């Protein structure tokens, strides 16, 4: 299909982008990699009146270590995130997640900021950011602010970003010494996750000392699984991890769609949590499947 007609401006600075968006009103939208927005426009499911192309704003691109955190600019592509050496420790989760998004074409065009701003519950990066207790940074006409990932994703395709605000990047704790894994379950290689499980695990000699689980496509937003996380603390054997994973059923019932019923999603989440945690723990003998 062909999109409905729209205006296009290319911004040369963040300030200019913000002014253009403000002038364009509520139907103006930033354009980053275009890999979520353009498909929707072609189906005429999105009809922005104005696209403000922020693709040239190099200030929003790149990965930098900053003390115990890593700061990633919004325009950093999935491909760049996947190869970022700054992402060490638990934050390495983001690189693992990014390398499994879509196909090479998508990874070279799609951006972290676009993925975050789009707030698709089936997108992979949001669950990882949630598991890492990341913060999303935003710029608006009134200045900048940051919002915890847990507060940023408020519903399917809905975020805490206000109209006219631009996501400038994310700040992620490094979690040195923690291991991570992402288990994505999909039908075809380039598909979105039917269920995705991000696990960040602090494995010590006496077993799991801390764990965070982020879930993709198990609800209207990315979710944490607090019951599972609590039950994982102290676990040191496969059976204990499996038992902890089963606590995912305490979460609200996930949606059903053409790929999976709710019941099957819960089952998949259990299996994938156990596998992701075992992989993240990196402990021989715990690996399964």
């Amino acid at each position: 299909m062909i999109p409905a007609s729209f205006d296009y401006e290319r911004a040369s600075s963040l300030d200019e982008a913000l002014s253009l968006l403000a002038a364009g009103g509520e139907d103006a939208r930033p354009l980053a990699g275009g890999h979520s927005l353009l498909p929707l426009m072609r189906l005429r499911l999105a009809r922005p009146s104005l696209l403000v192309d922020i693709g040239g704003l190099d200030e929003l691109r790149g990965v930098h270590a900053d003390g115990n955190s890593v700061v990633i600019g919004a325009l950093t592509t999935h491909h760049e995130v996947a190869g970022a050496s700054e992402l060490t420790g638990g934050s390495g989760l983001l690189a693992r997640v990014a390398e499994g998004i879509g196909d090479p074409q998508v990874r070279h065009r799609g951006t972290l900021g676009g993925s975050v701003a789009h707030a698709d519950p089936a997108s992979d990066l949001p669950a990882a950011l949630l598991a890492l207790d990341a913060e999303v940074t935003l710029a608006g006409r009134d200045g900048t602010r940051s919002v915890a990932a847990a507060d940023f994703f408020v519903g399917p395709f809905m975020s805490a970003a206000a109209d006219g605000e631009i996501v400038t990047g994310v700040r992620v704790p490094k979690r040195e010494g923690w291991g991570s894994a992402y288990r994505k379950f999909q039908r075809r290689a380039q598909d979105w996750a039917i269920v995705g499980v991000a696990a960040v695990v602090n494995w010590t000699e006496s077993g799991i000392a801390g764990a965070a689980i982020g879930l993709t496509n198990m609800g209207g937003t990315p979710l944490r699984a607090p019951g599972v996380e609590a039950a994982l603390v102290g676990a040191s054997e496969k059976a204990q991890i499996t038992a902890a994973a089963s606590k995912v059923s305490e979460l609200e019932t996930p949606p059903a769609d053409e790929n999976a019923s709710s019941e099957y999603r819960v089952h998949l989440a259990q299996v994938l949590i156990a596998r992701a945690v075992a992989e993240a723990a990196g402990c021989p003998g715990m690996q399964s499947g």
Partner: protein
Amino acid sequence: MATAEKYVGGGVPRKEDPKLLTGQGQFLEGLTLPGMLHAALVRSPHGSARINSVDVSAAAAAEGVVVAYSGADLADEWAAGLPMAWPVTDDIRIPDHWPVAQDVARYVGDAVAVVVATSRNAALDAAELVEVEYGVQEAVVDVEAALADDAPRVHESFDDNKSYTWALTNGDVDAAFAKADVVVSERYTQPRLIPNAMEPRAVVAQSVPSTGDFTVWSTTQIPHVAKVLFALTLGIPEGQIRVIAPTDVGGGFGSKLNVYAEEALCIALARRLGRPVKWVAGRSEGYLATIHGRDQIQQIEIAATSDGDILGYRVNIAAAMGAYLQLVAPGVPLLGAFLYCGCYGGEAYHFECTGVFTNTTPTDAYRGAGRPEATYAIERAIDALAREVGVDPAEIRRRNFLPAGDMVQSPGGLAFDSADYEPALDRALELLDYDGFRSDQAERREGGGSRQIGVGFSSYVEICGLAPSQVLASLKYAAGGWDAATVRMLPTGKAEVVTGSSPHGQGHVTSWSQIAADALGIPYEDVTVLHGDTHVAPHGMNTYGSRSLAVAGVAVHNACDRVVDKARGLAAHLLEVAPEDLEYEAGTFSVKGVPDRTKSMPELAFAAWTAHSLPEDSEPGLEASCVYDPPNFTFPFGTHVAVVEVDTDTGAVDLVRYIAVDDCGPVINPVIVDGQVHGGVAQGIAAALYEEATYAEDGTLETSSMVNYLVPSAAEFPSFETDRTVTPSTSNPMGVKGIGEAGTIGSAPAVINAIVDALSHLGVTDVPMPASPERVWRAIQAAQGGEA
């Protein structure tokens, strides 16, 4: 005739590829004519709805719009409804099918209005302004639900949703079942599939008002057939229509073997407006407006002895036709009707099929057409029989194979030429290392882990070379099955082949060049192949049903022989000897015993063109034609093997190996044949594991794009292992059979059988297609006595 085969059998690179790989393909979307207008259709969003009113005024007033019409506005354009050419029974119900619906819209996608504008964008924008007031009615989308007594009727003029029932009985079926030790009774669902040709459909129609001539460019597989049917639908004298399938048509798989509303509509609009009109489908629009395939419920019963020797077959299927009858839709199940006994024996056979209307996109021939469905049923059922009688699945096939031979009588009623089924099975087992596989499998089972492996077989025989015209008559098909070729030597010694086939990805230009180059003894590069334009190739039945090589290719071969015959007379005349005194080899005639007295084909071509000295009774020029009507079908066969690994925790299936041993007779070009097998196998595996078009109860197509209609990509497949046995057909002089659909026909049951085999120790006996992870997981749960 002694011809050194230099090109035939060799893997010369396809002539078509350089331009396709470098973006120089000539596809219809690139065609622009002076003054050309663009049409956009308004389609019903309802499965079933009365069209109470259509208001096109806002659309007509929009920028760039020339005119907008409702179905009623166009009613007097049609001399007849859209054609259906295969009325399989005398009492078949054939509904009216107008290019634009007039009173009732019967599926989501049924056209209700059209907007014509100076650009495609303007037409698409304005189409949103057409206001249609619908009286929404209850829809029925499921083939079994449509057969219920109280089902909503798709066509109110018919008493129920049945279009026809067609039956075939051979032998005493009740007796065969009465004496059987075992009867297996299986029910299978053939999901509805959406053909995904790389190039969506498109059409451009041009009229010359002063002469009444029309030229229609269409992404069609059947320019010649379409020409006849356009004439009938639009009431235009046939001689005034020229149909052109562009040099490059990007795939069809049956989806362009049709006469579509948009084709008729563009011609009608060009006639009304006196300007060229173009329509190009979007991908999702194509999902609604281009035919679908399959969508059948199958019941198959096999009667056998306790040793697993099959005695008889009983088959009953319900086949969705969709909302209307497209070009050959009723006949699609008939192409499988004779094959529910596969390559196996037996005494008796009964087949019965009911065609059913549903409020869905019409179905029609999709790669394999009837034969994948039949092969799936018998190849799944014979595995069920193997389990029932405790015989190995490879062994039960071997035990029941028809004997090797020519014209071997099958219980389905056909006589198969070139039957020799065991060597293909043997070769497949050898490539697999069957014993090795079974011991690996036993080890995995003992280990009890979550990754279990299974193997599945499918030994198929299929029907190609459509078709002897007289047989088509007996099946009530309204056209012949012949095809035509003209081979013309050009004055410079090159050759031109004019073919009645209409290639759209198959590589006919390459294969026909190989055939002609060998027969005429000229370089392969010196052969040009012309196709797809009814003004260039006056006769043709075109390309579908794996028929092109076995019919049109044989016509090329025969026409070449005739050219060589004529050349012999000319050579004899010029060399002043009797024709019998000449030897012909590799394009050169030489006098027997005097090998330096020769005439080459290029020399003769020039002599025939100058016509300075010709034999008596001979005309200038060196060309010949052949219209070939095959005496019989051809019957390719083979054995396919799938090896899968199933994750029993999640139900995910990983296809680990795929082995295809096919017998299509002598191979013209192994690269092309492998390509056909690869693509065909991929499409069959897609049906087994991924693809399924689904409708909501109200008639909404849920799988409306490639996001949720799961067309797999290369990443989902292992490297296919292909091999061949070669048993020439006795029905044509080249011995060729056809390979276009074999991959699709053989593959789906092999994959599902492999999944069932992997899980058989858990008690699983069936997993429906497509075997999604959830379905596999549920099958395991159910077999284990779980709730799922």
